[in-house]
């Protein structure tokens, strides 16, 4: 193949990469071609050819710059945001679904709308600590650390959180600020309790999608058991054990205390403890012979 044919082929390749949107590869190819052309006196004296290739390189560089300048996460239309919430909310309970929807918006970079929804949920008293943390996360993602601190200062005087919850939030914000290298003094939490213990009991228990129980016993050799939650009522979850887990089912008899349960919800993961409230063997249907286990998770 003659050098002229090689250049033609390479030009075609560079153009295909450009039309495919592979701009960096296209630029690299044009640069390679220019180098090839400049090494050959016959071609390097062809002013039109050299300028043509340089023009292509400039055009691709311009496209690359425009691509770089595009916002990573443009704000979507309200309809698209609703679709995101619809497609990426899996929780069955209303409150967990509301939080999950707002979290989905945040994960898709729709921070402003996510913030609106989190504020609304906080006003309604929906899982206040989880919601407040998500407000802080949104602020940090929007590079508005001072806004996060302002919200926290407002929460100190609002009747939304207990003393312990405010301390937890303060620690959370402090960590978030430190991660971003932001130095702002956070107001201290005063000794007054903002919300009575009795009121906390009224809160809806977080929806749990899965649990991980740490098992100990000679036959089980100290392992973790991961179980999907089939059903939940308040803080009691029902999980399913296959029929070949007789030893595990025997170990988890009603009344058994579980000191280390890791609980997975759509919005957070937390450690707790609990008690086996009941077990049963499934007598009918496709899961006959399997076991169901009811576990009551401690509320605090």
């Amino acid at each position, binding site marked *: 193949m003659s050098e002229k044919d090689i250049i033609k*082929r390479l030009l*075609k390749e560079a153009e295909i990469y450009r039309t*495919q*949107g*592979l701009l960096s*590869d296209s630029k690299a190819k044009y640069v390679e071609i220019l180098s090839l052309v400049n090494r050959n006196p016959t071609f390097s004296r062809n002013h039109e050819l050299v300028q043509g290739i340089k023009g292509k390189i400039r055009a691709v560089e311009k496209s690359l710059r425009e691509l770089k300048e595009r916002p990573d996460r443009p704000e979507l239309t309200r309809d*698209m945001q609703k679709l995101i919430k619809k497609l990426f909310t*899996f929780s069955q309970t209303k409150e967990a679904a509301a939080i999950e929807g707002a979290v989905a918006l945040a994960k*898709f*970079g729709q921070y402003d709308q996510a913030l609106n929804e989190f504020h609304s949920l906080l006003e309604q008293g929906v899982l206040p600590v989880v919601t407040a943390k998500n407000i802080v996360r949104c602020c940090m993602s929007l590079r508005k650390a001072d806004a996060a601190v302002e919200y926290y200062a407002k929460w100190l005087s609002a009747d939304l959180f207990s003393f312990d919850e405010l301390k937890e939030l303060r620690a959370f914000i402090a960590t978030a600020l430190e991660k971003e290298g932001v130095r702002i003094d956070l107001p201290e939490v005063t000794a007054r309790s903002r919300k009575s213990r009795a009121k906390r009991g009224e809160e809806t228990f977080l929806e749990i999608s899965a649990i991980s129980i740490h098992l100990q016993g000679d036959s089980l050799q100290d392992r973790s058991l991961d179980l999907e939650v089939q059903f939940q009522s308040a803080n009691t979850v029902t999980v399913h054990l296959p029929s070949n887990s007789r030893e595990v089912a025997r170990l988890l008899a009603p009344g058994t205390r579980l000191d280390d349960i890791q609980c997975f919800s759509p919005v957070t993961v937390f450690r707790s403890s609990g008690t086996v409230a009941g077990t049963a063997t499934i007598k009918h249907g496709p899961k006959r012979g399997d076991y169901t286990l009811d576990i009551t998770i401690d509320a605090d």
Partner: protein
Amino acid sequence: MAVFNAKDRIIECKLVYYGPGRGGKTTNLEYIFTAFNKNASAEMVSINTMGDRTLFFDFLPLGLGKIRGCEVKIQLYTVPGQARYRSTRKMVLKGVDGVVFVADSLEVRRKANVISLRDLAENLKDEGKSIFEVPLVLQYNKRDLKEQGIPILPVEVMNMDMNSKLKAPFCEASAIKGDGVGATLKQALLMTLRELQKELKWTR
């Protein structure tokens, strides 16, 4: 994960098209939407507000009709392929039942394919799934570019790079022409529904 509505006897499962940026994921869905329009239960949604690059995801719901007395619906998604959209890919992968990995056959994209496959494996792991267990089909796209004299990777090399351990079924394709798109989808659906059959303990 697949949603089974026992009352209405409807099964909904989720298939995600994954792969490096500009590899042809959206083109696959666009072809499926055009070719199988009568099966589409709604319009295809593409959230790519800037030009033709997917910034968020594409979404196409399809109905497959009745299987064993159950209405089977499939939701097809694509993910944005660029490296910086990892958190979006993680979100879209939530609840996935099957994956089509669209690999770019261009020689210059060899490394990008491997990086993207590794990204898929990590994100599936975060979902509590293994890339070795989830129904997965590899599509080697842009095979048509060979005819235009553009260097593409031989299938053997692509299998060596991506499939030597996975041993997943693979299809050669040219999504822009529609070649191999249907075959890929069919293979992915077969594998996904077989897995569902095991999960729901359907018997013959």
